[in-house]
């Protein structure tokens, strides 16, 4: 049957395109779209609700005067007056900014350097390395509030460990003297931060190719030269992480000073001023929000710098 054959051939040639079209149109069925929408949408909603709404709310409230009592209709809008007052008529503000900056510089310099040193030393194949790592890391598992409590005991003028060790019983008030207490607290914060930095660097050093060190040795480099010319440059990604972690620690420092003296008498930090004005007896919501926005702007400075670097790196790769 030649006609029948021709007809069959004709229908055969026209079917494949239709089938392909159908498959394409059903690549994402309605249920699939719903599932995908939920998986993306729910986290997005949570993120917007818990991060962006409070942030924008804080920015908006910073232009208001409100004591937190009553409804939103009781809010009085006063433009930028809160910012002017914070910058010019709040004696605690600039000391708090200075203290946060000191905190940042100190954490970047001292605990980071010490943590790096510990990491390099413990990275060698030595006996009891694990024990030393555990000992140095232990403070990291303590909350900063607990660290504050521990160091309060150590710094006690009459019965504290520090004064008794150096023979100054009753004389030096490490936490009560506003000219030295910030540094005393920084030592306590460093006690905890060092272990964290050490751990990060140890992770980086584990990934270091031993062949690089061997090559350097063959070229006659000593330990010092090997470290600065081979090890440290290779650790650059870890350095960036350590820097970010340190900035975060410095900007969000709060619990350790609050436990010690509620952030007074030389221990003012921006976070303390925010809570004193919003949560404390003051109930100056607008004023505290303005300080919160200042802290946000400072944080954004560091965040944007970091993100620019990350994106630039991704573009290269």
């Amino acid at each position, binding site marked *: 049957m030649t006609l029948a054959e021709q007809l069959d051939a004709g229908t055969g040639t026209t079917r494949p395109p239709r089938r392909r079209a159908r498959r394409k149109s059903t690549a994402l069925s309605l249920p699939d779209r*719903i599932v995908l929408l939920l998986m993306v949408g729910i986290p997005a909603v949570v993120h917007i609700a818990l991060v962006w709404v409070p942030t924008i709310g804080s920015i908006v409230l910073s232009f208001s005067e409100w004591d937190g*009592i009553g409804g939103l209709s009781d809010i009085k809008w006063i433009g930028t007056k809160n910012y002017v007052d914070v910058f010019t*008529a709040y004696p605690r503000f600039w000391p708090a900014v200075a203290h946060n900056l000191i905190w940042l510089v100190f954490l970047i310099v001292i605990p980071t350097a010490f943590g790096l040193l510990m990491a390099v030393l413990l990275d060698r194949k030595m006996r009891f390395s694990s024990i030393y790592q555990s000992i140095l890391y232990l403070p990291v598992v303590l909350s900063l509030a607990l660290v504050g409590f521990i160091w309060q005991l150590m710094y006690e003028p009459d019965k504290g460990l520090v004064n008794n060790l150096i023979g100054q019983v009753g004389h030096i008030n490490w936490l009560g*003297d506003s000219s030295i207490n910030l540094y005393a607290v920084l030592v306590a914060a460093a006690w905890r931060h060092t272990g964290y930095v050490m751990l990060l660097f140890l992770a980086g050093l584990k990934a270091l190719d031993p062949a690089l060190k061997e090559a350097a040795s063959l070229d006659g480099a000593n330990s010092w030269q090997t470290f600065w010319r081979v090890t440290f440059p290779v650790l650059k990604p870890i350095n960036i992480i350590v820097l970010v972690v340190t900035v975060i620690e410095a900007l969000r420092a709060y619990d350790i000073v609050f436990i010690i003296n509620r952030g007074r*008498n030389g221990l003012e930090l921006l976070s303390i001023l925010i809570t004193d*004005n919003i949560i404390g007896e*003051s*109930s100056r919501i607008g004023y505290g929000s303005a300080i919160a926005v200042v802290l946000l702007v400072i944080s954004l400075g560091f965040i944007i710098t970091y993100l620019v670097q990350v994106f630039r790196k991704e573009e290269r790769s």
Partner: protein
Amino acid sequence: MARPRPGQLPTLDRRSVLKVLLAGAGIAAVPGLAACGSGSSGAESKTVTFGSNYSDPVPRNALKAVLDGFKTDGLTVTANTKDHNTFQQQINNYLQGHPDDVYSWFAGYRMRYFASKGLALDISDTWTSLGDSFSAAQKEASTGSDGKQYFVPFYSYPWALFYSKSTWAKYGYQPPKTFDELITLGNKMKADGLTALAVGQADGWPQLGTFDQLNLRTNGYDFHMSLMAGKEDWKGAKVKAVFDNWKRMLPLYQDNALGRKWEDAAQGVLAGKAGMMVIGSQQIGQQFAQKLDDLDFCAFPTIDPQWGTDTVEAPIDGFMMSKKAVNVDGGKKLLTYLASAPAQLTYLKSDPTSIAASSKVDEGTYNALQKKCVQFVSEAKHITQFLDRDTDPGFASDAMTNGINKFLGDPNSVDSVLSGLAEQAKSIFTG
């Protein structure tokens, strides 16, 4: 030929999973709803809830004894006790959330603030039957800006210059009548090997009391209250004079004042290592405890003869009702009980460092300290409540606390401290 449909099964599976998830969410929601329902409708009319900041052991036990003695119409009191300072800091949120029927609080500006904000219940009708138990000054301290009563006084305690009787007898000290005599006495104490003035400012509030004493003696009651209301210039000559007088006292201060807790400072007075302390009778009395017989006091001395010692600082602690009280009738009965002599005497039996607010209390049961306190307060022409109760809470806790800390740490910074206070006062009071 019929072919099986390979895509159908996966699609069905996804739908089934979604249905299960939604059903699970529905089931999970049920317990929460049930809990909410039972919570809102379950309050009993036989229970009065009581929010308390009497968190230290002595006052806590004393108050428990008082509440145990409340036996009216079969009512039961449920006490929720919170740390003293935390209660004070969070009270704004507390009163707007789910407050207890009755709660402990302070007289004066802090009470009027909540009354004017609509967070406290008007109890003027309760005062109708209480009026003859209290003085005009106490009623004024319990009255809001609208002329209605919102507060029931329970007890008060005077601030003064406290010392150990035996220590003073040992060294032959006499109460100073003038500020110059105080300085002379302090120097003699130092020469005798004692700390002259015991000071512990770690909590931030104790030295507010010293400012009050100095200002009341330097500038008098009217200026003090005007300053507390934000109507005076903190950079003015009168306030400067207060801090100049304060500078004269600073050499007598205990070392490390800013880092010490007031409890430790008071222990120094008890132990005979410190000569005297500006503090309230309740605070230092609780530290003396079993040795209360050894505790004595005198008025903070005269600075300007025009005012003499005519004003006494005697904070009044008491109770208020929440606007949102569930059991209003029971709460008012509790307040009536708390205003009675038996209730206040029950409290003071466990904590004999204060004096009852009610005038119907039999003072024959008082110890020597309390009798002296009663006389001290009754002879006063004016009574103040304490800086952080007489002024805006933000100004007190933020501006004043930190300003005074700055001054104590660096007395020569007084000009910048006062400028800072003036600017913050302007920002806060003319908001």
